[in-house]
């Protein structure tokens, strides 16, 4: 198979980028999209030209490194997968394929197709954890967790932090990312003591990092490689509302036995 690629090239964050056209020849239909790009790059390197910078690592859809907008869609045409899981048999021979980086204010471009996604880490640092010291944890079976509850928490927890949801959103909102973490921890008893603080801190951090607000268009769900449902955004909103009620209500000091029972 042969393809024509229009790839975004940008030397550095400050320089202006542009599309450059490359030809990919003799591509096997069983090759992955990234292996096809490897081939193009090998050709460039052999000519001592700078290869196209793009991110990848595990190449099995779990590390969340890969991040390409393919023909206008983050992670390409198929649902429920990341770029590294896309194979060339999915494209007709001779197709013209446009490849761009994630585009969002909170994700500045580093080079070509590589963006800086540290904003997501900073949102996590604001509250995406359970503050528990190493050592002294109670036996794992002390708190029983309903199977369905655990499964739903797992659905949310399977987020790989790739940022496709942000790249797909008109407002470059990170709502689905935040919702996944807030829901995962709010669903489990271990995450409950900090749920009030967590949801506010993470949403504040999201705003601070320059992510937009949710526009209810579900683009995020459509491109999520782990098919994380927008229902978790509803959970996030409910958690946020609940946090407001708890904070504005009667004393929420730790000694109040009712503070967390709302």
């Amino acid at each position, binding site marked *: 198979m042969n393809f024509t690629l229009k790839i975004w090239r940008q030397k550095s964050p400050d320089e202006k980028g542009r599309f450059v056209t490359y030809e990919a020849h003799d591509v096997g239909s069983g090759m992955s999209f990234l292996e096809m790009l490897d081939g193009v790059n090998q050709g460039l390197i052999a000519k001592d030209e700078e290869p196209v910078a793009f991110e990848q690592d595990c190449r*099995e859809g*779990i590390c969340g490194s890969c991040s390409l907008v393919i023909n206008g869609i983050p992670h390409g045409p198929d649902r429920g997968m990341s770029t590294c899981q896309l194979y060339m048999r999915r494209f007709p021979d001779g197709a013209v394929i446009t490849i761009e980086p994630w585009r969002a204010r909170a994700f500045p471009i580093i080079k070509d197709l590589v963006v800086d*996604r540290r904003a997501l880490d900073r949102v996590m640092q604001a509250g995406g954890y359970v503050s528990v010291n190493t050592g002294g944890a109670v036996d*794992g079976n002390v708190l029983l967790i*309903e199977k369905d509850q655990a499964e739903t*928490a797992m659905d949310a927890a399977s987020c790989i932090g790739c940022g496709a949801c942000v790249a797909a959103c008109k407002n470059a909102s990170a709502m689905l990312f935040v919702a996944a973490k807030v829901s995962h921890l709010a669903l489990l008893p271990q995450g409950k003591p900090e749920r009030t603080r967590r949801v506010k801190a993470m949403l504040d951090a999201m705003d601070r990092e320059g992510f937009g607000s949710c526009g209810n268009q579900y683009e995020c769900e459509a491109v999520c490689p782990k098919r994380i449902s927008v229902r978790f955004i509803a959970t996030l909103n409910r958690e946020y509302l609940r946090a407001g009620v708890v904070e504005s209500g009667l004393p929420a000091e730790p000694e109040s036995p009712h503070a967390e029972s709302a």
Partner: protein
Amino acid sequence: MKLDPKIPAGPLETKWDRHRFSEKLVSPNNKRRITVIVVGTGLAGASAASTLGQLGYQVECFCFQDSPRRAHSIAAQGGINAAKNYQDDGDSVARLFYDTIKGGDFRSREANVYRLAQVSAQIIDQCVALGVPFAREYGGQLANRSFGGVQVSRTFYCRGQTGQQLLLGAYSALCWQIERGQVTMHPRTEMLDLIVIDGQARGIVVRDLVTGRVSIQTAHAVVLATGGYSNVYYLSTNASGSNVTATYRTWKQGAVFANPCFMQIHPTAIPPGDEHQAKLTLMSESLRNDGRLWVPKMAVDHRPPGDIPAEERDYFLERRYPRFGNLAPRDIASRAVKTVCDEGHGVGPGGQGVYLDFADVIERQGQDVVHERYGNLFDMYNRITGEDAYRVPMRIYPAPHYTMGGLWVDYNLMSTIPGLFVIGEANFADHGANRLGASSLMQGLADGYFILPYTIGHYLATAKLLPVGEDHKESRAALQRVTGRISRLLNAKGRRTAASFHREVGKFLWDHCGMSRNKAGLELALRSIPALREEFWRNVVVPGSGEAFNQELEYAGRVADYLEFAELLCHDALHREESCGAHFREEHQTTDGEPMRDDTCFAHVAAWEYREHAVPILHKEPLAFEFVQPTTRSYQ
């Protein structure tokens, strides 16, 4: 050099407790003034960095990925072992210890392995407390499954994404410590050399992968959690960034490297396709719980699998190892697959593959049950091969997966360089010559959460550590080694890409130092690798500059290290004149092809010391078995 493993005396069961009590502590006031470097943020690195931060040390933590959450532990699928005995099926600390020692073919230390089994239960509790959503039973209790090489159900799991969930747990703990200011995180920063001052590890040289700036980071101690080196084979199940650079360059600074030839080849990966392939994708070992491996009895049989009647199928694992059947340990299963393929029974392109068939379990329990257990793996298989494994059997073939070898460490996880600690897959300590499934996650977290934080304290409390800085002559020398190498790579301006060298050395190792090895092949490899390395430095091409984001430069540096490290691997495989665990020397087998171990001559850890332009020096740490009797490891 004398290798002192520093194993505490006394009964096995109480060694760790007594050792912890005898260790000196660092007072809380002093911890604040102590800086520890942690390199790598997989399960071992992230758990160690967060725990050290929580204890009050100042931690400088480095990873080459753009976020600590992307370390390759994330890709572990199957599960994590722990001696909880929740199933009441006869499990115990002693049994997990014995299974691990036996699984490692009696080439690991009793004391280390016993400690690992002891802390295993705590790991599960810690992970639950961090919010890891383990699979649960309907009654709300934690669920278990069984995993290769054992007869109890002690594996805890989160669907087929256990590594991801455990890593996200450790990452979240790390996030908390970053927020508290205890840990400073340096993502997209690669360690390129170690700084040793007055015989102690006192810092590292790093390159900022975005700006290209090379700088010095000093500290009171250095912890390496930089994973394994399976990528030396070019094609492996590892992430493409996983590499040997940190441990290899540390070796060149004086840390000895133990058992490099102990290399786990995982039986169930998707078979290799064309030459452009960049990696081999693992299908979780848990699939062997329900899938049955078979090949056609007739060699070179091109019929579709469905047309081959049951009596014309060879369920070779069930035939050769009736007691364990399809759950035989990884090294044994891999070799059995290779044997049937070498004999011409392999299926798929090039005859490199065997069937992993789910028809029986689907008929017995229904497709829904199989979907619930392995749905994501079946989807992954479908995407890569275009085949539906609910209807036709999967095809699988072994692939390099995990390295039991690594930098030598004592009981305290300290290398031969004082102040340099090595944890997780990067060290050699616990798995002997073969690792059991679901034990790597256990070891990574045991080292990081529960062992290193104690043992490093004793070192910091007792070692005499003078202030050192960036201007120390050893720091400058290390910096120069790094910048010198970078400019050599950029100035070679040859005609071949780094990947072409990587593929060549990888193929060479796979052929001569892979699933089976012999003297002639290893000697051929040792003669050929230096020539390839020489060509690399003369003829490699690395475009771009060193003072910018340059992925090809990063990669070429790693390939240069593989070209040296490959030789060390072959030296070790050549020295070990026995077959044990994953290391199979063709000269040492029984008439039915079973491995023959030699406890008289090889019950030792082979630890290699670097010598410039010379064959490395072999040191031996004898393995004493006081509590278990090494037996022939039979799974028949």
